[in-house]
């Protein structure tokens, strides 16, 4: 029977103000601080604080048998430092329990890899520094924004010294094989790829509270039973942390489920591992080839959630186009403002997809429409360009 590996993503973006044309050149504050604070407060009350307390208790009560992994973006850490130091402390206490592995990612939760190797490295480095500073640990497994992955990213992560990397177990690359094994990316020597088990992860992340789902209501015993029936070495259950209490409210029984799952898994004769433990325990015997980029977003599981339409394509291209200017000016504020504009959520909100995926995009957006998201973003970008231009002139570079 396979082991069970649990990883949660913790992230909040910096939402922009409804930044209209008249602010360009005048207003260097881009973020809707009130909204960012309010959403952080809401998610902290519904998810972060109670879930952290629960997992800390479960880790301690299970005496080392129950362990989890978290990936916490740089932007959410900054928000917690700014608005809710108590919430960050609660994460620190959870990590100090010894049962939590932290993963590496891009500081700004960005699509940097797709556009610039150099910027990607800078952001991963920045995130490693932040995690070390706040949690005093150095992650060994890398997960890219929303599991954006291909062979090149795996090779890059290996070069940067990571032992493992996380990806979506996409059928078009698995071609019938099980996601419950570790795999080797082509042209890598030792880094191992862990693949998300899509159906089992989504049972918890999406379907759990769906009363129309035939398996509803899901109990931890039933879920543990399903895992015992799986083949392979390790079942990877990867999802957003906010699914606990925020996407699925407390009333759905989500907390009861997580309360009881550690014991249910052990009772079923299974054991918990973290990503690094999985990498150490199991061989990656077979190759998982993934030339075209995959992700865990939308039905397409590609980049179309962020780069599917012309607005998204233009916005993201224009941001990355500023790289050389920003880095040559080397001003901390400007570099940070530019980095925050790379956060993938900005482009996610510009999606004009319809159907179920469109509904998910709209659930998360702070704006009336994708078009407003684009307009505000481009106006902010125009202001940033003006500031960069001024800074260049001051430096006498222009």
């Amino acid at each position, binding site marked *: 029977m396979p082991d069970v590996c649990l990883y949660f993503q913790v992230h909040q973006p910096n939402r922009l103000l409804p930044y209209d044309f008249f602010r360009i050149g005048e207003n260097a504050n881009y973020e809707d601080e009130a909204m960012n604070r309010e959403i952080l407060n809401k998610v902290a009350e519904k998810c972060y604080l109670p879930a952290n307390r629960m997992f800390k208790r479960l880790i301690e009560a299970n005496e080392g048998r129950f362990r989890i992994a978290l990936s916490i973006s740089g932007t959410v850490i900054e928000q917690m430092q700014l608005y809710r130091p108590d919430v960050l402390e609660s994460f620190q206490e959870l990590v100090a329990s010894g049962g939590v592995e932290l993963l590496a990612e891009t500081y700004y939760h960005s699509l940097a890899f797709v556009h610039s190797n150099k910027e990607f490295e800078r952001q991963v480095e920045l995130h490693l520094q932040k995690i070390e500073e706040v949690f005093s640990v150095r992650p060994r497994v890398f997960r890219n924004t929303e599991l954006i992955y291909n062979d090149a990213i795996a090779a890059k992560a290996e070069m940067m010294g990571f032992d493992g990397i996380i990806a979506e177990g996409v059928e078009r690359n698995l071609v019938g094989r099980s996601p419950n094994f570790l795999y080797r990316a082509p042209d890598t020597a030792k880094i191992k790829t862990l693949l998300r088990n899509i159906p089992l992860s989504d049972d918890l992340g999406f379907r759990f509270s769906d009363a129309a789902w035939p398996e509803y209501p899901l109990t931890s015993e039933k879920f543990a039973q399903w895992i015992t029936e799986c083949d392979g070495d390790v079942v990877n259950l990867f999802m957003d942390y906010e699914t606990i209490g925020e996407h699925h409210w407390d009333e759905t029984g989500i907390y009861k489920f997580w309360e009881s799952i550690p014991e249910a898994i052990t009772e079923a004769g299974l054991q918990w591992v973290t990503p690094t433990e999985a990498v150490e325990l199991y061989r990656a015997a077979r190759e998982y080839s993934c030339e075209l980029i995959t992700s865990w977003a939308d039905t397409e599981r590609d980049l179309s959630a962020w780069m599917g339409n012309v607005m998204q*394509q233009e916005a993201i291209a224009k941001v990355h186009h500023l790289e050389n200017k920003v880095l040559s000016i080397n001003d901390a504020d400007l570099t940070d403002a530019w980095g925050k504009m790379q956060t993938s959520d900005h482009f996610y909100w510009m999606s004009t997809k319809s159907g179920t995926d469109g509904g998910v995009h709209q659930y998360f957006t702070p704006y009336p429409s994708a078009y407003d998201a684009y307009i505000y973003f481009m106006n902010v970008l125009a202001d940033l360009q003006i500031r960069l231009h001024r800074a260049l002139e001051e430096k006498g570079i222009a």
Partner: protein
Amino acid sequence: MKRLRVLKLGWEFPPLINGGLGVACLGLARALAKHVDLTVIVPQSSPESDSEEFELQGLNRLSLKSLKAAEERYRYESFAQVQKVPVFLDPYGNEESSTDIYELTHEVIRDPLEIFSETTAEQLGTFKLGALYGPDIGSKVIEYSKIAAKLALLGDYDIIHAHDWMTYLAGVEVKKATGLPLVVHVHALQYDRSGAGDHGWIYDLEKFGMEHADCVVPVSHYTGKIIIEHYSIDASKIRPVHNGAEPVKAFETKKKFPEKLVLFLGRLTSQKGPEFFLATAARVIAKNPNVRFVVAGTGEKLRSLIESGAFRGLGAHFHFTGFLDKEKVNDLLSMTDVYCMPSVSEPFGLSALEAAQFGIPAVISKQSGVSEILKGALKADYWDVELMAKHIDNLLTDDKLRERVIKQAKLDISASTWDAAAVKVVSIYHELAC
């Protein structure tokens, strides 16, 4: 000469709708009131627009009782067989045009004259609430015409003056009921909104009104030509009168960014040609990246324009403000370097005059009425984006040209007043009344 009594039939009236039609009706009414006794009937009016200069009657504020004396004397004729008109028009809507097909089943009534002529409380009530445009505009136009005819019978008038197609049916009804001469004022045509091929109910009403009119007053020679060519109206009864422009308090604001600013102001519909503005912008920016283009306004084309702009990679230099109130529009005008009006068909184009009052040189399409007034403005066919771009670039780089265009515009607008327009209209009244 005796002071004439004029019954004016309008549809929009500020502050309820601040479209071009309402603004023009108010401007002309104020200037006319200096020469004639004026009564204005509109579907909806708000008490704040009541004026001592003329009498304003909003049907929303009318009581059924006040029509009573006229009911006996009036028989409705024009559309007696039709109860419901399947027409939809909302010139201020933002939705992309719907693909719904309206069923063309006119309900025919058995004894039309009896039922139809009398105004019911329910019919009068439709003017109290709801929009002036929208799905029931057809019925509103018919009800308005009946009530207007009755009100005309209750007063003493010498001339009827109707503004745009919504009131033409009323103008004809009043003329039939009273025998008075009818002037129809043409602020915009279905031709402008939908092109030459759209011959629906609105086109028919426009033609019907102009055919029954004793005089047709288009707001420009450009529109007069369309009336002759596309509506086959006798050229001898067409008398163009240009609109005036209320003087605005112009001011200048320093931009917060170093780039030049080129402005498009108007509703984002095919008629206003925003796509041509976008195509022009692409050409200017390719040559001179230190320019920002701003689209102020909203409409059914907004989303497709945003997408086209993104596709052309113009974002961050091509901005959308959405709908702006008057104050914001003025803020924008105060920092604008060039005004661009690439309308596909623009009967007049008041905004170009307003821009001129702010000392902004204009690049305007030849297919506009205002091009007859702004003699110095740089002109191009609306589709000629190359020339449009060249004009804009020249105005941004050639200060002498810029000064010349501004100077000429100042001269031109000084003559464009509502008083001047009113004098021409009054002379038409006197010709018809004697």
